[in-house]
C-alpha cells in the first residue's frame, strides 16, 4: 500500500507542474493589464480625475517582472516556486502564501461543512428512498434530489438568506466565522451534492438489495435493520465513495460562488477578486493550491476504494 501511495504521489508532480504552466501562460494570454488595473479598476462610473502616466505604470510593471518576456517570467516563477515562494500579490503587496494561510480555514470549514450536510442528507435520503421504494417518501426524496441538482447554489443561498437572515433574523448575512455563520453557507453548498448522493445511494442500494446475499441474509432471519446497515450499505457505498471524492472537488469549486453570496472571505472570494484585477501571482497560487488539494483528494479516494473493495487491491497487486 505504501508503495502504491508513493507511486501515486510521484505521478501527481507532473500534473501539478502542468497546471502551473497552463495557468501561468493562460493568465498572460487573456486581455487585461494587471498593473494598469490596480490604478484604474474603478475607472468606470464613479471614478475621479487624475490618472498616473505611462512612466509610473512602467516602474510598477518592472517591480513584478512583467516587463520581461513570458518564458523569462515563467523561469523566474518556477525558481521561486521550488523554494516555496509563491510571490507577492500585486494588489495587496502581501506574500501569496500568507494570504492562503489567512483564508484557507474559511474555505476548508465551508467545504467540509458542506460535505457533512451532503453526506447526512444525501446518504440518509438515499437509504430511506431505497428502503421505502415507490412510496410517498421515495417520491418526496426524488423531488428533493431533482430540485437540489436543478436549482443553482447561489439561488438557494439567496433564498436562505432572505428567509432566515432578513425575515427571521436567525442567522447573519455576513457569514465570516465558524458558528452560526457557517450554517446557511454549508446548507447552500451541500444541497446540490446531497441531491446527487441521494440519487446515487438510492440506485446503489436498490441494486444491492436485489442481490442473492441479501436474500440469504433475510432467509437466515436477520432483522431488516441488520440486513440494511450490516450487509447492504457497505457494498452500496463503494460507488458512492468515488462520487464523494469527486464531489469534494465540486464543493471546493462551488464554495467560490457561496463565499461571494454569503460574504465569506475564503479562498474562493480571493480568487474571484484576483481574477478580476488580473493579480497573476495570487491567481497562480490559488489555482496551484486547488490542483494540489484536488490531486490529493483523488489519491485519498483511490486509497479508500482499495480498502473498501478487495478486488481493486488484488488487481493493483497483480498489475
Amino acid at each position, binding site marked *: 500500500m505504501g508503495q502504491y501511495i508513493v507511486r501515486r504521489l510521484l505521478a501527481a508532480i507532473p500534473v501539478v507542474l502542468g497546471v502551473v504552466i497552463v495557468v501561468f501562460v493562460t493568465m498572460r494570454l487573456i486581455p487585461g493589464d494587471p498593473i*494598469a488595473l490596480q490604478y484604474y479598476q474603478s475607472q468606470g462610473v464613479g471614478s475621479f480625475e*487624475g490618472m498616473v502616466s505611462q512612466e509610473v505604470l512602467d516602474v510598477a510593471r518592472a517591480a513584478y517582472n512583467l516587463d520581461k518576456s513570458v518564458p523569462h517570467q515563467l523561469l523566474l516563477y518556477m525558481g521561486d516556486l521550488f523554494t516555496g515562494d509563491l510571490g507577492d500579490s500585486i494588489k495587496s503587496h502581501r506574500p501569496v502564501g500568507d494570504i492562503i494561510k489567512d483564508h484557507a480555514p474559511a474555505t476548508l470549514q465551508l467545504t467540509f461543512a458542506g460535505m457533512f450536510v451532503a453526506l447526512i442528507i444525501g446518504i440518509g435520503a438515499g437509504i430511506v428512498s431505497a428502503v421505502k421504494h415507490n412510496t410517498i417518501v421515495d417520491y418526496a426524496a426524488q423531488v428533493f434530489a431533482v430540485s437540489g441538482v436543478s436549482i443553482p447554489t447561489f439561488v438557494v443561498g439567496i433564498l436562505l438568506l432572505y428567509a432566515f437572515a432578513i425575515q427571521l433574523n436567525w442567522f447573519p448575512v455576513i457569514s465570516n466565522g465558524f458558528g452560526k455563520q457557517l450554517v446557511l453557507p454549508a446548507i447552500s453548498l451541500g444541497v446540490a451534492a446531497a441531491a446527487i448522493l441521494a440519487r446515487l445511494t438510492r440506485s446503489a442500494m436498490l441494486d444491492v438489495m436485489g442481490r442473492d446475499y441479501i436474500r440469504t441474509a433475510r432467509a437466515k432471519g436477520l432483522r431488516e435493520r441488520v440486513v440494511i446497515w450490516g450487509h447492504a450499505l457497505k457494498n452500496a457505498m463503494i460507488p458512492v465513495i468515488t462520487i464523494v471524492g469527486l464531489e469534494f472537488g465540486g464543493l471546493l469549486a462551488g464554495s467560490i460562488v457561496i463565499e461571494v453570496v454569503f460574504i465569506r*472571505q475564503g479562498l474562493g472570494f480571493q480568487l474571484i477578486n484576483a481574477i*478580476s484585477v488580473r493579480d497573476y501571482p495570487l491567481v497562480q497560487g490559488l489555482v496551484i493550491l486547488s490542483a494540489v488539494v484536488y490531486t490529493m483528494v483523488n489519491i485519498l479516494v483511490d486509497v479508500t476504494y482499495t480498502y473498501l473493495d478487495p478486488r481493486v487491491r488484488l488487481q493493483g497487486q497483480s498489475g
Partner: protein
Amino acid sequence: MRTKSLSRRAVLRGGAAALAGGGAVVLAACAGDTVEVIKEVPVEVIREVEVVVAGETVIKEVEVIVEVVKEVQVETIIEVPVEVQAKTEDSVPGIVVDQYTNIIPLTDWNPVTGGNISWGSFGNPDGFDPATTANGFELGAMMETLYDWSPGNIISPLLASGMPEVSDDRLSWLIPLRNDVKFHDGEPWNADAAIFNFDRFMDEGAVRGRVANNVSSFSKVEKVDEYAIRIHTKEPNALMIKQLLKPFGYMASPKAITELGEDFQRNPVGTGPWIFKEWKDNVSITMSRNEDYAHGVPGLRNQGAAYADELSFVQLSNDFTARGLAFEAGEVDSLGIHFNFQQVQRMASIPGITSIGLLNPGMGQYMPLNCQLWPTDDLVVRQALIAVVDRALVTARFSGGVAPLTFSHYLDPGVLGRNPEMDHYYSWDVSKANKLLDDAGYAKGDDGFRVKDGRRMEISMPNTGGAGSLNAVFKLDVEANLGIFVDIPNMEFSTFAEGATNGEYHTGYVGIGGSDGDVLWDRFHTSAYGVPGRAWSFFQYDGVPGTATPGSSVDALLDGARVEFDEAKRIKMWQDLEKILLENAVAIPMVQEMLPFLVNSSLMGGDLFFGATFMPNTTNLYSLAGDN
C-alpha cells in the same frame, strides 16, 4: 438764465436680481454683519431751466441726464450659496438627490457619544501607504491632506494653516503649515514631515500610487521654516491647489514609515480623526476615535473629535445583491452601491432607511465615440447618435430615472468651464438624426439597417455586466430609431478596459468626476491616447502627440489652462475646449453622474458630507444604536 439740479434715486441697483436669474436655485441665506461702504450710485438728474419772460420766471424746459455720485451706504452682507443644479428630490419620492458638495442632514442634530458607526465597503484596500495606494477611500479617515473641501465647494486648509501663495515667477508656492497637530504616534506635524512625505511621492524610481499624478509637476519641496514649506514646480501650475487635496497626497508619520518599513502598509499612522486599530484582511478595518483631534473641516458643525468610539469599514462582497442584503439586515449602517438604483429605490420605501442620490460633478456619465473606427469616424454619424439616443429610456434602469439628463454638454452644471453657448447645440431629435444620415448617403436597407458603399452600419458596445440592461436598451433604441446595428459582446471589465484603451470598440458607458474643465485632460489630451484608464475617445490622430486635428487645438487648450493663472481666461479656455469637443461630437452626453448611497437612519445620525470624493466626513456622524 440759471439752472439748478434736483436729483432722485433711479432704480438701477442690481445684484440680487442677477443672482436669482439663470435658473439658479437659492438653497439658504443667512444674515451676517452690517458694514459701511462707499459706492458709486447712478442717479437721474433733472435739470430745471428758469427762463424769464416778461418779468415772470417760468420753467421753460426739463432735461434728464444720468450722473454717477459717490455716497456712503450701510449694507448687510448676505451670503447666498447658489446651487448650480436644480434639486429634483420633489420629483423622486423617497430618494434625496443632492450634491456631493452639500451637507445632507440624516437626522435632527442631536449627537450621541460612543458606539460604533460602520460603512459597507467592498474590495480589500491595496494597503495604507499613501505613496503607493491607488485607493484613498479608507485612508481618508486616518490621514489628512494639506487642504480639503468644505461645504459649498470651498477649498479650506486642513494640515496647512493658510492658502498657498505663489511666487512672482509662478514657479514656487509657499505653504504655511499648522503648528498644533501631532501624528497618532505623538510625532509632530511640521515641515520636515511634509517634505518626507512629498519626497516619497516624488521618487520616480519607486512603485507609486495615484499620488504620482498629483506631484507630476513638482520639482522640489523645501523647508522654509519649522511650519512652512515651498513647493517648486517644473512649470507654472495654475491648478496647484487641486494637487494638494484628497483623495491622494495623505501625510503619514515619517517615524512610523521609517520604523515599520513594508509593515506600514498594514499599520498606518496619520493625523486624522481616526486611529488605526485592526485590519482583518477582506473582512473589516476598524479604527478608534482620536480624542486629541481638533482641526476638522470648517463649515461643519463638529471640527473636534468624532462622536463614535469606533469606525468600521466592513468589507462586503462585490456582488451588490449580497451587499444589499447585509445592509438590509442592519449589519452595516451605511452603504454605497454602484450600478443598481433599483435596489436603492426598493430600499427607499423601507422605514428608517435614507436613500440618497449623490450628484458627482465632472463629465457626468457619457458614451465616448471612437473617432477612428468606421462608421463613427464620420462626424455626421456621431452627431446623429447624439441626437437619437433617448437618454431617459436608456438610463432608466441604470440610474433609476433619477439622475438629471444631459444633452449638450460634456461638463456638468457648476463645473468650471461649462460653456453656456452650447446649451442647445444638441437636443433629442430623432428626425434630425435620421435626416443627417439620409443626407450623408447612409441609406436604409431591406432589413432596416443603414448601408453605405455596400457596408452595413454597425457599432460595438461591450457589456461588462454592470450596465447590461443599459446596453440592451441602447441597442433597441439605436437600431429601431436610427437603423444602426449595435453589437454587444460580453466581456469582463478588465478585458473591456484594455480594448477601449486601444480603441477597439465604438463606444462604452463611462463617467468621471472632477471640479473643473481639467477633468477633460485625462480623456481627451492626445498624449493620453493608449494610456490605460485615460483616453476613451480618439480623434483623427497620427500617433505623434500634438499633431492631431483637432487634437492639437484640444491639447493647446488643455495645457494652456493648466498654466493660466487668470481664472477668467482659464475658464474661457475650458469653455472653448468644450465647444470644440461638442462640435466634433466626441461623446454622447447621457446623465449627470449620480452615485447611490444608503444610510440606516435608525443606526446612524448626524450630518453627511462628502466634499468632492466618495469618502465622507465621519466626525459629524454618530451612532444611534449604542454599541451596534
